[in-house]
């Protein structure tokens, strides 16, 4: 009964090789750091006025290594804007340029109250395609629901932001090799343990 375990290990090994080759393949697509300027707006009644929030530095798309550096502290003014937007069911909008210095942006939003009640605790996700172009941006806060909390101003001293990077992955391909290996192994096993069953027809079912 040790045999199947061994074969499973081989299977795993094969899978790892396949994964590694995938990595190698992807690596020549895009690697290298880049910086994106993150802009935000506390939008009331659809009037978005964007101002710089900070920069996102992506060191490696593969390793999901990115972090956010705020441009300045969250000022008194900002707190008031956020409070106002929060109370008037406004939005908190974010955008990054598609390329650094470009006028084309990708943007996203959350209700302003969600940012307010989370006291600046948000996670950004930036999506890249395989050649490293920016596709989209999204943001979630923890907690994500508005319950009408009143948050003390002291909580808004600094951003508690994490940045995640997602890159397009390669699609699945039919895994014929593993299946053929498995069939071969089954065949070998059958040959090995291929002693004839000498029991009678009824004996097999008793």
């Amino acid at each position, binding site marked *: 009964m040790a045999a199947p375990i061994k074969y499973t290990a081989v*299977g795993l090994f094969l899978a790892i090789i396949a994964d590694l080759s995938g990595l190698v393949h992807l690596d020549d697509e895009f690697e290298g750091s880049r910086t994106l300027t993150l802009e935000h707006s506390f939008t009331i009644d659809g009037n978005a006025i964007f101002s710089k929030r900070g920069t996102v530095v992506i060191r490696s798309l593969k390793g999901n290594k990115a972090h956010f550096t705020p441009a300045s502290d969250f000022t008194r003014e900002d707190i008031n804007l956020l409070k106002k937007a929060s109370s008037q069911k406004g939005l908190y909008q974010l955008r990054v340029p598609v390329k650094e210095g470009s006028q084309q942006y*990708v943007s996203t939003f959350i209700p302003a109250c969600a940012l307010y009640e989370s006291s600046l605790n948000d996670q950004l*996700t930036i999506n890249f395609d395989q050649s490293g*172009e920016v596709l989209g*941006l999204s943001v*979630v806060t923890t907690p994500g629901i508005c319950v009408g909390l009143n948050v003390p101003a002291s909580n808004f001293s600094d951003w508690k932001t994490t940045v995640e990077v997602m890159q*397009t992955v390669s699609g699945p391909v039919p895994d*014929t090799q593993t299946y053929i290996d498995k069939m071969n192994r089954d065949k070998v096993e059958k040959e090995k343990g291929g002693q004839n069953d000498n029991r009678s027809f009824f004996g097999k079912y008793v």
Partner: protein
Amino acid sequence: MSAQWKEIMLVINFLFIPTVWCLYEDQMGLFDWKQDFVGKVEYLHWDQSPAAMGKRLFVGTEKNVVASINAYNGSLAWRRVFEESVRGRVDRLLYQTNILISVLAGGRFVRSWQMGTSLLLWETSLLADDSIRASAVFTSREKADSFLVVTAHALYNIKTNDGKKIWETNLPKSDTANRWFIGVNEDDTYALVGVTPETDVVMATVNQEGTVISQNSVPAPWINDDTSCQIVKGSYFVCYVPSKQALQVLRLSGGKNFISTSLRDLGFEATSETSIEIPSTGVTGFETEIILRVSRNHMSVLTIEGNSLKIVKNMPQVSAVQIVENEDTSYIITLQKSLKEPSVSITGYELKSGQESAELSQKIPFANSHGLPLKVNVMMFTRRRDSKIGCKVAILSEDDALQVIQKPGRVSWRREEALADILAIEMVDLPVSENQAKFEDEFGSHDDVFVMFIKRLKAQLSQLQSFVIKMVERLQGLRHPAPTLSDEDIDQEEEEVEEEEDLIRDEFNLHKVIVAVTKAGKIFGIRSQTGKIVWQHYLPDLSPFDKYNRQTMLLFVQRTTAHFPNPPQCAILGKNKRTGNALIFTINPALGVTIAGTPPNGLDLGYKVVQASLLNEVDEHFLKGIILMDTQGKIHVYPESVQISSSLPSLYLHLTDLDTNIITGYRIVNTNDKGLKADEVWNINLQKSQQTITQVVCKRAIEHVHSQGRVLGDRSVLYKYLNPNLMAVVAEGEEPPSPGTHKGPSKFFSIYLVDGVTGHIVFHVNHKRCHGPINTVHSENWVVYSYFSEKHRRHEIAVLEMFEGKEQSNSTAFSSLSPPPQPLVLRQSYIFSSPLSAMATTVTEKGLTNKNIIISLKFGGLLSLPKALLDPRRPAMPSQESMEEGVIPYIPEIPIHTEAIINYNRTLSRVDGIYTGPAGLESTSLILTYGLDMFYTRVMPSKMFDVLKEDFDYVLIGSILFIMILVSILTQKLAAKRALSRAWK
């Protein structure tokens, strides 16, 4: 060893699953029906051969079909379906006595057909460019032994009996000219005119040996691809120029320039429909008259005498004209739709004298739902008995219908060819029966006790009445209709009786009305159990939205039958042909009557629509609203009685711009002064420089998901990621060849799963060296898509399945604004051994039943594939746990079992789409495929778990039950007796 056995047994088990779907032979056609279409008819010929005179029609259609139709009942004698691409385009269909020749794809394929059986007699291939339509004519009026084909490269003379080329000639300017006209001159030379758009026309005269005798070119900067032109008498070239509102005439022998004749000079007022009419038989090359369509219902026959145009007959109010010859006399046949009543009068005039021929004139009923008759093809004959002339008439109308008159005054049959181009489809429940409705009325209202009591009595009385009627009917057996005057009346009466009985919901709600919106602007209501048309409406102004060559129309079910006494309501949204604005038309889908307040030709909304969606908000009559966004970004709600303010501001819309590949999300807000407004809240950029968005697939609103998760082998639950706002965006592109390697350009595609509220890209995947057409099915927590792998040269199907994980973040509701953590996306891909044209998933009432994927295969099969075979959790190495869970071990290829082909031997050609709808039975899903063929059936993906089988043995079960009861009574008695006797001891 035992584990292996188990595994093998498991595989065997799953291999046998499909067998349960197959039908018994006597069940063929019991739950399904199929209808064959040919598409919009372009060429039409009556069979004139002595053997089958007037018994068949030959048609060539826009859907790349050549077919023969039985003239007595309209059934297809045979049908040849060519390729869907330009390689199958029917450029000309030539017919003479015993010869039927099709010229396809600019002359690339010239084929001769055996008329009775559609056997291919011969085929020849000419040097051609398939982007340029070929022209072809016979060399003589009757019994021609050869015919001419002009392709982009040369003029060919081909023998009719074996397809051998007699000669071929290169024509002048064949490199720039992209349309050619042929005419046969009286002196048996051939006149050819080539058109170079916006530049000039070149004329050439070719003699019977194939030598170009003369050639000449004349500047014609006004001419383009759409200009309607014709060669008259083999010596004049006539064109109608819309920009000048004038006819241009050019003499082919030595003419130096076009002579212009304004329509006004002829006494006509030009319209947008003005053009030179091409007869339904195609251009023969022997035309001596011009049929000019002045407007939709104004025709005129002109001729040329001494370089100037002369009106032969002017026919206001006439919408279809044919010039037909019988025994050396030419007749003009005209069709005039009556303005007052639904009828058309057919009139025949002698061409020379202009006298009306009484034998040809007749009046036929012609429903308004056919629009105007557009083309007519008459087969005239002289009766032997009394040497009077008679005729058989085939009519093509605006709604693409083909109808044939065999006996004067009556339409023998009609084919609704609009159904070959369905753009939107829905299945709607039938209304409940009268008794049922009374119950609803009784229990739905809050009257005082006395009124309720009266109602109760009335309801019970009517129930008793219907019961008695039913019993009497059953005793009487089949009813025979009372004898009436003509057979037509009987037909109609029978139909009416049937309708009254049938248009009521059945016990299991299996019978529905299929509402189909077609490209021609016709809307049909079709009975799902028989495929018969219940009602039809033709809207002359309705046309599809046409963007990037993709035609769409929208059909919304605004109110279902569930809200008695309010009738069900459907809304059809399209584009107004004349104004370009949105056109909306509302109808009661069960009865086919327009909703009060809707204009009979649809309501022009007065703005162009870029996005439309059905709302969940209802008005006080349970009518769902439609939200529309116009080109200015303004938001409209139809009907205005629907108030959406309660759901604001959590209403979101998104727009996909194919020019930039940017998807933009909007939030709808209510501004106090300017009404509703859409604020841009998010956008994503899918890199137009690399790829183009080809599909955006959302989930269906009617879908229910019964199970929130999957129970694993260890009894823990893996929760599904069920985001109702998720959409799958497919973008296709091509990678330029990289200079380093020696590879050519390779195609690829990407799939993005985007949250429609926040624009959050949940997952994105890319397939290299693969291309479309990509068929995508998006349901529950999975996306299944098919594509072609260039690397392996095979079709593949991939599946993405999303799970939240072992814990569910919010079990009661899903909110995109506070989403669960990044889902786990499992993916797997399989080899699919057959090309496929469409995919859909079954949908049931409560979503309890397993899902099947319905795949239409290019070879004509309709495959019902269990979703369990497309499950990314299929393990390569089956473990104890996966076996416990019942996941099928991974096999790279998806098997195509013939038992799983639900259309058995009924081949389906060119399936455009598959519609699936729920039935009242949870186990059953209704399926309708549409395209060139329509096929309706039902599937039970988890077998019929909620219905007793037809062969259920009631007698056996009943008698066993009876015996058991008897035995138990008996034993009770015996036991009591025994107990008594024991007590005495």
